[in-house]
Structures are given as structure tokens and as C-alpha cells.
């Protein structure tokens, strides 16, 4: 019967235990708080009920008491705050080297694409025990990527990337919900996350008709769209060399610096004028409206791949760091 009437959600990611621990702590704390208050109220109500001969005793108040019951809760609140904040930071900091999945949300479906090019709709297959980072954007309105069993949720916004990550611990099939109201079929924008043993997962990977890996698609686009005419790996291009840009701190023309993350790459392609790299002229044309969200994802994946050791192309050999790029730490 408990299959039909669960009282606690499944726990299938490394994060779930942390969240549950804090939740249980809060439940116990609140329980105690409620019991304290209810018992006092009921006790007073019974003990001091109005009856002949009983007269209320007037009490003004007491500053020490007031301070006590302000400061002690304050202390407790601080504990909850810090604990919650720590979990939040874990949730918000994808580990390095996580496998990436690009997510595009639209009314009313989830489109997911793996690094290796497999596409899925409303379904996500992942292996147990591997860090998965989702890089998400929306084609229309705000949606929210929610997997209760993993205790993760992140709104998915049009016009920019948001990210979330998890590491599944239990093979199984779990609900994937859209948690931000997004129109008529909001409640139909659901799917599932299938967590598999690594071996099964490999089999699944092999069984799907995968396109080219995302970065390779990106590389093809990079050539087709003419990016490569300006961005070349020699120093002759009119644009900066994109080798190793991702993850670095970029110095801008107006003196600001930014970290080149997914959103920066995306912005550089769509609104190149917004952040001009120091030492370059703002001649890059905008690609707004010329590339779809999926193509953008592929370009981003490609540019990212240029900063990783396992570069998909032979041509991209290691180059000397460009002057405008400063090493992080």
C-alpha cells in the first residue's frame, strides 16, 4: 500500500540526503517549538480558567524575558541559515569535470541533448554515480527543471543559461517536472529521469542513434557560419583566438573583467557589442535570430571543448595564451 501512499520522497542523489537531514532537523525543531507553545497555551487555559474566586494577576512584562525569547530564536535561526546556505552552495556549484547535458525547454516539452549528441525528449538517461551538469535555456517562457528524487530545481529562463547539477545514487525511474507555471499544459510538461547502472547506460548509449557529438556539430557550425574567418587559431584573425577562452577571466575594452562562462559565450554570439574584448574592434556581427537555441548550445559546447584537454580536433593544438586573457588564479 505504501507504493500508493508514500509519505517521504525517494532519495536518489547525493544531495537528497543533505536536504533531508536539514529538513528532519527543522521538523524536529518546529515540532518541539509547537509542542512547547501548545502545551503552554493548553496548560494556561486549563489552569487559569475563569472561575469564581479566581482573579487574574496583573503582570507588566519583563525585558529580560523579551530579550531571551528574541536572542535564543535568533541563534537557532542562524544555525538554520548557515546549514541551508551550505547546502545551497553545494547545489549551485557544479563539480569540475561533470558530464554536460544541454536542456532546451519550450511550451511544453523538455529537449535534452547529451555531449555525445544523443537527443531525448522528456526523458533523460544518466548513469549512476556520475556528476551531471545541465546547461539550460528556454525558447519561450520561464520553466523550471525539477527532479524531486534528486531534490534539485532550477528555473529555466529565456535568453540566458542557468545550470543545475546532480549525481544519481540509485538506479530507477524518477519524475521530472516543470515547476514554474508556463501556460496551458504546464502540468503536462513532465517526463522522467532514468538512472542506469554504468554498463546498462553504455548499452543504451550504443543503442541510440546518436548524431555527431555536440562539440563536433558546433565545430561544423563554426565553419558554416563563418566564425572561423575571424576566429582562427593563428594570431592572424580579426577576432580573438577562442582557444582556451572558456573559464578564463577576460579583460574588456572598458576595463571590466568577466569570467568566460556559458552565458558570456552566448552573449558574445548574440550581442557581441555588449562586452568587447580588450584590444579588439567591435566588428563582430550579431548572430541574433540566425542561430537556434540548439545551435547555440552546439557552438558553446564547441568553444568549451577548445579549453579542454580532449579537444575533438587535431588542428587545435595548444597555443600560447593570448595577451588579453589572464589566467585564473
Amino acid at each position, binding site marked *: 500500500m505504501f507504493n500508493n501512499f508514500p509519505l517521504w520522497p525517494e532519495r536518489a542523489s547525493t544531495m537528497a540526503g543533505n536536504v533531508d537531514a536539514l529538513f528532519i532537523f527543522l521538523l524536529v525543531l518546529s515540532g518541539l517549538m509547537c509542542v512547547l507553545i501548545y502545551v503552554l497555551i493548553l496548560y494556561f487555559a486549563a489552569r487559569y480558567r475563569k472561575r469564581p474566586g479566581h482573579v487574574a494577576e496583573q503582570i507588566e512584562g519583563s525585558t529580560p524575558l523579551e530579550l531571551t525569547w528574541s536572542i535564543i530564536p535568533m541563534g537557532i535561526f542562524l544555525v538554520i541559515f548557515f546549514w541551508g546556505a551550505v547546502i545551497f552552495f553545494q547545489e549551485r556549484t557544479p563539480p569540475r569535470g561533470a558530464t554536460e547535458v544541454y536542456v532546451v525547454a519550450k511550451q511544453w516539452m523538455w529537449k535534452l541533448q547529451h555531449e555525445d549528441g544523443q537527443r531525448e525528449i522528456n526523458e533523460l538517461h544518466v548513469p549512476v554515480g556520475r556528476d551531471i551538469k545541465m546547461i539550460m535555456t528556454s525558447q519561450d517562457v520561464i520553466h523550471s527543471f525539477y527532479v524531486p528524487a534528486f531534490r534539485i530545481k532550477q528555473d529555466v529562463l529565456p535568453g540566458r543559461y542557468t545550470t543545475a547539477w546532480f549525481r544519481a545514487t540509485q538506479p530507477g525511474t524518477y519524475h521530472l517536472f516543470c515547476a514554474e507555471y508556463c501556460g496551458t499544459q504546464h502540468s503536462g510538461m513532465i517526463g522522467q529521469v532514468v538512472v542506469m547502472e554504468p554498463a546498462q547506460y553504455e548499452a543504451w548509449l550504443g543503442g541510440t542513434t546518436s548524431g555527431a557529438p555536440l562539440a563536433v556539430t558546433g565545430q561544423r557550425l563554426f565553419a558554416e557560419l563563418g566564425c572561423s574567418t575571424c576566429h582562427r587559431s593563428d594570431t592572424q584573425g580579426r577576432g580573438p583566438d577562442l582557444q582556451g577562452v572558456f573559464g578564463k577571466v577576460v579583460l574588456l575594452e572598458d576595463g571590466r573583467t568577466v*569570467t568566460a562562462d556559458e552565458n558570456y559565450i552566448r552573449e558574445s554570439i548574440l550581442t557581441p557589442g555588449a562586452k568587447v574584448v580588450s584590444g579588439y574592434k567591435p566588428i563582430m556581427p550579431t548572430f541574433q535570430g540566425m542561430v537556434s537555441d540548439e545551435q547555440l548550445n552546439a557552438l558553446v559546447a564547441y568553444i568549451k571543448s577548445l579549453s579542454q584537454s580532449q579537444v575533438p580536433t587535431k588542428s587545435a593544438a595548444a597555443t600560447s595564451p593570448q595577451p588579453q586573457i589572464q589566467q585564473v588564479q
Partner: protein
Amino acid sequence: MAEHSSSVGFYILIFAILLVLTATTVGAAFINLGPLNPILALGIATVKALLVVLFFMHVKGASEKMTKVVILAGLFWLLLLLGLTLADYGTRLWS
């Protein structure tokens, strides 16, 4: 009420200062002061606003404390709105 701060002559004086400040702010906009440009522009605007509020709206001297409290509360809340919103936008790129 302090009589000198509500005479016709005094009003005209304030008016003249306001006009001069307007001219100044326009002029200053054409000089390159770098990041100081907007600061100066807003600074002058604030001086002008203060003149209007203090002397034309008679907040200085004539009116009672409550008026000042109300105005300060309004400004404080405005800063809350601007400041805390900026706190989000200003730190978005940090991580």
C-alpha cells in the same frame, strides 16, 4: 516662520540658483569627466531637488518634524528598492 525665507525676493533668488544649476549641469555633460559625469549630474540634480523641497515646499523651518520623517522614510524606501535590487544584479557575475 522665519520671514526671510518666505519673501518674494528670496524665492526669486532660489529660482535664479536653480536656473544656474540647470545651465551648469548641461555644460558639465559636454566635458569628459569619465565616471564622474553621471555622479556630477545626479549631484546637481540632488542639490536642485533639495532647494525645491526645502524652500519652495517649505520643509525648512516652517513645517514640523513629522514632514521630515515622512520624506526621509520615502527616500529610505526608495533606496531599499534600488539598493537590494542592485545587490542581485551587481553580484550575478561573481560566481
